[in-house]
């Protein structure tokens, strides 16, 4: 974690905070949604982008966080404790989801996470005492460190603080032995074993840390929506998060944040463009199509996502021809950081 990273993370948070203040309640809600999505995307990027473990259970993990924080908050605990509790349970559930990764790899493991998503969705519907079933758990506005968080604007600050912390922690983690082990496991488990890395142990840590961050993001979703409902944590949500990290740039440092902003704000942009052009009805129908099309285009033309695209634009602007590794090749999705190691 360099000083530059710290400065960028804090700078992004400050810009988002200013936007939340300037744009009013609706703007604050959007900023909060982007911040929460970015935290969730950071956790998934750790798992998929850095450790190579494809997970389709992110939506359910966020749900675990939301229900946990909701129950703890409703029981009268401080919001900060509720968020931490959500992180802990998220980590435990994530580790459980990750257990099959000890034996399974690639597509087979991905299918196992798909099953985990389905099981958790089912549990959300039937564990009435904890989840209030299909009606969903109504969550009281929390107090964080004794400060009541009753408005959309008030929730922005905790989300941004957690975003900065999660972003820098992930950044720092990648400079540790464990972080480097993640990258080796991603590239080749056989090589990792050859290097003396305990592959199972490494994967488990990725699930624990990723789950902790996802749990906290889920808690923030619960506090923002004031409801944890099974309908909110479906496979669709998992797909959205996978889209975020692909579009932003799989295994890149700023990718999750850029991808989260893109995925959260794209529908809004399409809606506003449609309204301005008087064709919002048509664009509504095309929105999902546009979303899917964008992902396909990214996979074909810029698999390293918006992060790489922005880097190339920046290099072109200063007159530097991007090296082969930074040109869109359609092959691989290794990050520039991964290569530099």
């Amino acid at each position, binding site marked *: 974690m360099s000083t530059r990273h710290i400065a960028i993370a804090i700078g992004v948070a400050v810009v988002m905070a200013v936007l939340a203040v300037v744009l009013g309640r609706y703007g604050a809600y959007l900023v909060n949604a982007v911040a929460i999505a970015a935290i969730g995307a950071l956790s998934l990027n750790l798992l998929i982008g850095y450790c190579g473990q494809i997970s389709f259970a992110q939506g359910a993990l966020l749900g675990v966080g939301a229900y946990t924080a909701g129950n703890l908050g409703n029981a009268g605990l401080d919001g900060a404790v509720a968020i931490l509790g959500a992180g802990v349970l998220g980590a435990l559930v994530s580790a459980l989801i990750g257990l099959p990764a000890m034996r399974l790899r690639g597509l087979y493991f991905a299918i196992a996470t798909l099953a985990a998503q389905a099981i958790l969705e089912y549990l959300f519907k039937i564990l009435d005492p904890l989840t209030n079933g*299909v*009606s*969903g758990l109504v969550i009281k506005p929390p107090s964080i460190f004794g400060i009541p968080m009753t408005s959309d604007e008030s929730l922005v600050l905790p989300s941004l603080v957690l975003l900065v912390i999660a972003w820098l922690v992930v950044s720092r983690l990648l400079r540790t032995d464990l972080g480097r082990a993640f990258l080796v496991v991603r590239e080749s488990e056989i090589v990792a074993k050859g290097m003396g890395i305990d592959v199972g142990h490494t994967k488990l840590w990725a699930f624990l840390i990723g789950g902790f961050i996802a749990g906290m993001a889920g808690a923030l979703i619960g506090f923002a929506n004031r409801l944890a409902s099974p*309908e909110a944590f479906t496979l669709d949500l998992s797909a959205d998060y996978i889209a975020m990290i692909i579009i932003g740039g799989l295994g890149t440092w700023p990718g999750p944040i850029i991808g989260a902003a893109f995925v959260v704000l794209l529908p809004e942009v399409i809606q506003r463009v449609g309204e301005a052009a008087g064709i919002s009805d048509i664009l*509504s129908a095309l929105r999902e199509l546009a979303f899917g099309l964008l992902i396909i285009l990214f996979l074909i033309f810029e698999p390293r996502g918006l992060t790489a695209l922005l880097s190339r634009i920046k290099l072109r602007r200063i007159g530097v021809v991007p090296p082969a590794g930074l040109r869109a090749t359609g092959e691989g999705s290794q990050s520039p950081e991964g290569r530099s190691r």
Partner: protein
Amino acid sequence: MKKIKSAAALVALALAAASPAKAQVNVCIWGTITGPDALVNGMSYGLRDYLEFLNQTQGGIAGSKVNALLLDGRYKLDEELKIYRRCADEEKAVVVNGWSTGSVQALRDQINTDGVPFMTQSFASEVLDPKKYPYIFMAGPTYEQQMTIAFRDLAAKGGKKVLIMAPDNEYGRGPVNVVRQSGIIQKLGLDLVDTIEFRYDAQDLTPQMLRVKSRNPDMVYIQASAPQAIAILRDAAKVGLPAKLFVGNLYTITPTIPEQLGAAAEGFRAIQAYEPYGAEIPAMKQIEQFAAKATVEKKDIYFMKGWMEGIAISAAIENAIKKNGGHPPSDIKQFRQSVREQMEALTNLDDGGITPPLNFANHQGSIQARIAEIKDGKYVPTGEWINAS
């Protein structure tokens, strides 16, 4: 000549600038333009079009132009919660019309805090409480009341065994639980032989139909919408269950069902709370007048529901404006509060025959409905309006 034209244009501009700007009334609607419930989204268009009709024919409501913004909630909770905030905050809507059961349940406390009159397309009884949720209104009998109407009809005809099918979400399970716990089924002398749940987006319900067949019910009540009813009736026909066995709630009354299923839909019954599109009623003349100048997106019963909601909402807004001396209150909070009070005060409101006269003291408008049956590919009422209370 050119100079005269230029001078005239300048004068016109100056006059336009000098004249006080007419206040605009914002009404925000979110439906499911896309999403699993898109088949029954006519009410969103109906409401928008009625308000536009007022703009065309009366210059808006009490002289104020209405800006009706229609947004797509996609039946996704996060999207709907986001849209609500845009409507309440950015658009400064005096009335918000929202879609799903899940969203209105999530927003019920927020709606109270914001003090926004909210007309929901859901019929969930959990949000119908004029004291606890004074800003939430709906336009018809609750899902539980609809079920009661169907069960009364079964009991009156000597039926005994009833089975309920519902999706495993709040829209399905919520009302079914309320009815089961209320004891109404037993009071009517009926026996609930089974409750079968299915995924809201299920494509094949053949196994569930085999289970229905094994229970041999006298009536199967469908607490779901048209897309699910189509799957149910299609798969029921596969296992030899006739459509006349099934009764659906008021979101299963769409021409799409007989169009798609043909003979397999004959005899299917549904709760009808509104006159259908094309009925010989005064409201239809207004709609035809509107349709002569604009495109009607959905020519179905749900469009009629939306048109009726427009009549009720605009009447409340008009009364609020009149009460304020003929112009909308400048303070949006005061305006919303006044509209809420006027909405609640609507008594015997004539909606052009779409429903019996509306009374919103109970926040429902009308609690009357009847049962319609598909005969020769069309829904035909089987009796008179029944009061669900």
